[in-house]
């Protein structure tokens, strides 16, 4: 006999509120339905009431983890509307901040995944590493969550001595190679909870248009940093990790390997950072004189592609429209296919394996 089990919107297995209604046959999930909207804040509508300075501060609050990425995507779109281009040093600083945010996000996710596996020691190890990354973000920006680094045409703060940060990158990489990756890939506890669990096939990843590590863990070789480079990514050398299996273990591995690639990018950006200005011109800009102009920007956030479409009417202080498509919005519908056929006890870990962010999704 089949029965329905609701998980959420408020549940110990969920980090943020959303609802997964699961149809079960015994302990096996046969189908699921997702409900979002519990964090709806109307941010797109609010953006239409904010001027070109305030809107940056507002969009920084779409997500508590990818706050830099959201302002970067917005500012890149606004730079297309104003004709302003960030100077080379600002582009390098944007790469450093974006990769530090990726490290912070992936290590945080690894910790939460470990907690959901019942592997509390690993949770503590990951959060200790994350703390080190957050200390660096704080040292650069003065903030630990909303960094206020981006502005139209550049960045607000410099990195005084970029090479001094290379030591932190080396240490983080050492810890990942020595502790985190071997434990996640060889420990019986981790493998028994991850291998063959929550499979998203390559075909389903394509038809659901999954993005980021979720898509790459199902064999979809895509990454905007390589395919449509922005900031200074064109000058960086790195690999895009892809795994074919599509299970929780593959998602874990992709993120672990991405941490190593981020370290590689950070080392290049920090050692090659060119001298120069942080903002183009004298920091002043004008919107292009057209009746209505729309610009689109895309960035590879830790969870996948972030898309911003920004429209501005001539002479207006506020945007006519800001549309945000976040990676969880693209990835979440695929969770239905991941949990079908899974054991009920595995569903908290399976939904967490896409690294969901409902604050972003609901906006």
């Amino acid at each position, binding site marked *: 006999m089949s029965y329905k089990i609701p998980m959420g919107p408020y549940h110990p297995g969920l980090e943020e509120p959303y609802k997964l209604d699961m149809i079960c046959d015994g302990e096996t999930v046969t189908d699921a339905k997702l*409900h979002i909207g519990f964090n709806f804040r109307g941010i797109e509508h609010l953006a239409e009431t904010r001027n070109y300075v305030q809107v940056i501060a507002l969009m920084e609050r779409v997500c508590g983890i990818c706050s830099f990425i959201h302002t970067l995507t917005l500012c890149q779109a606004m730079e297309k509307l104003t004709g302003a281009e960030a100077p080379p040093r600002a582009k390098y600083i944007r790469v450093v901040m974006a990769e530090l945010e990726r490290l912070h996000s992936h290590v945080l996710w690894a910790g939460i995944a470990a907690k959901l596996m019942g592997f509390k020691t690993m949770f503590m190890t990951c959060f200790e590493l994350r703390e080190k990354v957050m200390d660096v973000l704080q040292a650069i920006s003065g903030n630990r969550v909303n960094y206020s680094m981006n502005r139209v045409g550049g960045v607000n703060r410099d990195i005084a001595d970029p090479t001094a940060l290379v030591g932190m990158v080396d240490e983080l990489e050492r810890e990942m190679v020595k502790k985190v990756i071997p434990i996640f890939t060889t420990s019986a506890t981790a493998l028994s909870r991850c291998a063959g669990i929550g499979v998203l096939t390559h075909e389903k990843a394509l*038809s659901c*248009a999954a993005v980021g590590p979720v898509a790459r863990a199902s064999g979809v070789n895509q990454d905007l940093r390589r*395919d449509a480079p922005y900031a200074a990514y064109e000058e960086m050398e790195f690999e895009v990790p892809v795994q074919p299996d599509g299970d929780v273990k593959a998602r874990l591995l992709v993120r672990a390997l991405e941490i190593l690639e981020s370290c590689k990018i950070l080392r290049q950006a920090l050692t090659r950072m060119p001298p120069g200005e942080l903002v183009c011109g004298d920091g002043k800009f004008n919107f292009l004189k057209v009746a209505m102009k729309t610009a689109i920007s*895309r960035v590879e956030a830790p969870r996948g592609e972030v898309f911003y479409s920004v429209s501005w009417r001539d002479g207006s202080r506020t945007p006519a429209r800001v549309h945000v498509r976040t990676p969880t*919005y*693209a990835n979440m*519908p695929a969770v239905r296919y991941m949990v079908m056929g899974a054991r009920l006890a595995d569903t908290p870990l399976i939904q967490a394996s896409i690294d969901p962010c409902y604050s972003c999704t609901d906006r």
Partner: protein
Amino acid sequence: MSAVEITAEMLASSEPYQEESGVYWFISDELNVRELAKAMNAVQARFVTITTYQLPKEEGFRLEYHWDLGGRLLGFAFNLSGNSIESGKIESIYDLCEAVDWIEREVHEEYGIEFTGREYEPLLLRPGDTPGVNKREEVAK
């Protein structure tokens, strides 16, 4: 022939794409959204999103569909005339591209636009509200 050229040929246009600020816009008044979805499926383009604008002075709506083709962002615009709830209609492509499910539902909820040929689940973002309440000024009044 590149994948972008193939899509242009499938959509039957001689001067298909105009590159503007990194987006390849397909300019055609004859464009059919379902033919478009089939062409995108044929070249394995990845659906990105639909951005909707309410145009000023009762001019209706503009829907911009986006697909990614190997890192190139493709854009296709559709104008829907009239601002009444009944006039905002366009064919759904949900049966051709399952990735549009949530965004078609969101656009329906925000602007009251009807994607014909599909059934809607309960409201995605604002359970209990009326479709169009978030953006449609006339409904909000």
